[in-house]
């Protein structure tokens, strides 16, 4: 086997320069001070200091000491939280940005689905954009021509192929964009979360296409938060955490590890300042806990007992239309349920707008819901149709012990994410 990608001691440092926070509040005083400092800044820029220098700018390592190889024809999953360095890694591999340390050798053309539709121009027709986009992605004109019909077929927009794409619906636009990228046929395909968009049918098609690509012996790097997609498409995965590669294992093992690690403590997830993106303000999550009947934080839940999910958060300003809730999903990424704290009309009336302060939203999940295995809790705080303040789809994971659950007399595992105690009646009617 030949090595398609070889990454050695890769590191990427970003500066969190003052430029980013400049005029954050648009204060006149700041603007004036800044103007007065201009000669100094020009001097620094000309002498190569300042923005490119290291003085008074904080920096952080988006990637550090990452080393791994990928053999040709392998499909490697990359998992990790937001900010773990996944996108930075893909950006370096696709040569968008250059590393600070380390080396990468890549054998063959890298096709990136970092962002489909890059270079699409709204005024150009679908046909013109296919050629344009193909060229940007590194395809030769002859190559695009030979695949043109296939691309149009795949995108399902053949009727509108000579219409400017500014008249397309967002779904059509996306399908066309993905179709071009999917037909690129690079030796190495890099996919980042493109499947998060599009309707279910199209997503299925995309996953199928990715599967084909892998079948043809190409190397695929697949980044996703969707654990079921990761498990379906990859045999092996690496886990990134705070810029470092902390595990490489068969996908099942890596997913298990990912879902159970990273969480601060068993049955409990605490957020400190640096985990919370600035965009969440004024919402600030504090903790998420899974508790048993007696109020104890637990890592393993008994399916025959009710479980309390407790989400504590701080509002730094009042929010109107806020709803706070959780997703429950299996570790394969299948959703089991979604619930919000203002689902009930009376609570909706009372807590639709909340003043600043500290709150706890608490929900009881009744007994006899869970099946055996491991579940993931995600949290969401949003104003419907307005804004999503905070979301963490894998905030916490817990185990379920099913001793005493219905049907335990048979030792077999039961399929399905829930195992409710249904009231059966059996009558002899003849």
């Amino acid at each position: 086997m030949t090595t398609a990608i070889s990454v050695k001691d890769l590191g990427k440092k970003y500066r969190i320069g003052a430029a980013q926070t400049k005029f954050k509040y648009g204060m006149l005083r700041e603007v004036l001070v800044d103007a007065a400092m201009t000669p100094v800044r020009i001097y620094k820029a000309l002498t190569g200091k300042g923005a490119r220098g290291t003085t008074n700018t904080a920096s952080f390592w988006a990637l550090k000491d990452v080393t791994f190889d990928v053999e040709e024809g392998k499909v490697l999953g990359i998992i990790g939280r937001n900010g773990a360095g996944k996108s930075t890694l893909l950006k370096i591999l696709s040569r968008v940005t250059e590393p600070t340390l380390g080396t990468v050798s890549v054998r063959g053309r890298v096709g990136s689905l970092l962002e489909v539709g890059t270079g699409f121009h709204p005024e150009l027709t679908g046909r013109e954009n296919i050629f344009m986009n193909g060229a940007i992605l590194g395809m030769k004109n002859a190559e695009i021509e030979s695949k043109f019909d296939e691309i149009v077929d795949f995108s399902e927009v053949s009727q509108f192929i000579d219409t400017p794409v500014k008249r397309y619906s967002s779904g059509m636009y996306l399908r066309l964009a993905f179709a071009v990228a999917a037909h690129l046929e690079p030796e190495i395909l890099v996919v980042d979360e493109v499947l998060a968009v599009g309707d279910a049918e199209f997503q299925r098609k995309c996953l199928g296409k990715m599967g084909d690509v892998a079948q043809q012996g190409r190397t695929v790097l697949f980044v996703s938060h969707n654990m079921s997609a990761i498990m379906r498409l990859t045999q092996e995965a690496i886990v990134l955490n705070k810029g470092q590669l902390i595990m490489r294992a068969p996908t099942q093992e890596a997913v298990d590890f990912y879902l159970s690690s990273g969480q601060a403590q068993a049955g409990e997830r605490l957020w400190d300042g640096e985990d919370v993106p600035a965009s969440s303000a004024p919402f600030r999550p504090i903790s998420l806990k899974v508790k048993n009947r007696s109020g104890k934080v637990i890592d393993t839940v008994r399916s025959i007992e009710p479980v309390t999910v407790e989400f504590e958060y701080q509002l730094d300003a009042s929010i109107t239309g806020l709803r706070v809730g959780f997703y429950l999903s299996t570790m394969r990424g299948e959703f089991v349920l979604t619930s919000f704290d203002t689902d009930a009309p009376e609570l909706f009336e009372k807590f639709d707008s909340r003043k600043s302060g500290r709150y706890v939203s608490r929900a009881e999940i009744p007994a006899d819901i869970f099946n055996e295995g491991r579940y993931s809790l995600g949290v969401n705080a949003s104003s419907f149709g307005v804004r999503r303040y905070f979301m963490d789809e894998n905030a916490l994971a817990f185990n379920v012990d099913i001793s005493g659950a219905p049907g335990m007399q048979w030792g077999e595992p039961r399929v399905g994410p829930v195992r409710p105690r249904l009231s059966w009646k059996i009558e002899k009617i003849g």
Partner: protein
Amino acid sequence: MTELIKHEPTTIYIKPPKGFAALNLRDLWIYRELVFFMIWRDIKVRYKQTMLGALWAIIQPVLTMLVFNFLFTRGVIKVQSDGIPYPIFSYTGLLPWGLFVAALNSASRSLTSNHNMITKIYFPRLILPIASVLGGLVDFVIAFIVLIGMMVYFKVSPAWNVLWTLPLFLILAIVTALGVSLWLAAINVQYRDVNYALPFLTQFWLFITPVIYSSAGFSEKMQLAYSLNPMAGVVNGFRWALLGSGNGPDTSLWVSVTISFLILFGGLFYFRNMEKTFADTI
């Protein structure tokens, strides 16, 4: 499915940037089709949803010429025109000047306006300013047709050597425009001041370039000082090639050519050196 391109995959090494980056013109060659696509896209889109369309390519230089002609015939501006009818004299200057200004305007913004491409995919970044500069040639050709009409009207006929001298001066104009554009585009990624400085820069540059006046009457020292501005060499060269005015190629032209290529090579190296941080700073 036909496999048109069967090639043994080449291995690319990605390393941290060190010192001055090599020009890496090989990559530019591999992506040459993209240059044409970008030019084509710019041209297709340029006059979309305008009423007059490509007529703008003519309207701009012609109106400018008419305004200057008005000022000239009324005696508001008193300048030399080497005994050539002023309309055709100024128009011949405005042609390469227009090409230059349009190139600077679009190329200096070419990186920032395509930032989504830069932050998402790899391609030689040089393609963007190059395509912007070359895209201006279409407008130039359209405006040139008017010049031919004017030459017929004023009964001015160029010497036969215009067939090779004019293209050479056109190349010099492009080299100059590209050189300056590379600097501006790369600086613009980090310092958007370029957007504000550019109108001033081009206006100032117009005054020190013999577009609407002739530098023929200047002293020899002045002539040489003038040739430090490569656009002076371009404009004088255009007039010499098309109208036969001036002395033709002399020392000052070679000074212009040298400066022009120095700007270009400096720009190329500066651009390549800044290129690696484009995606992070844009």
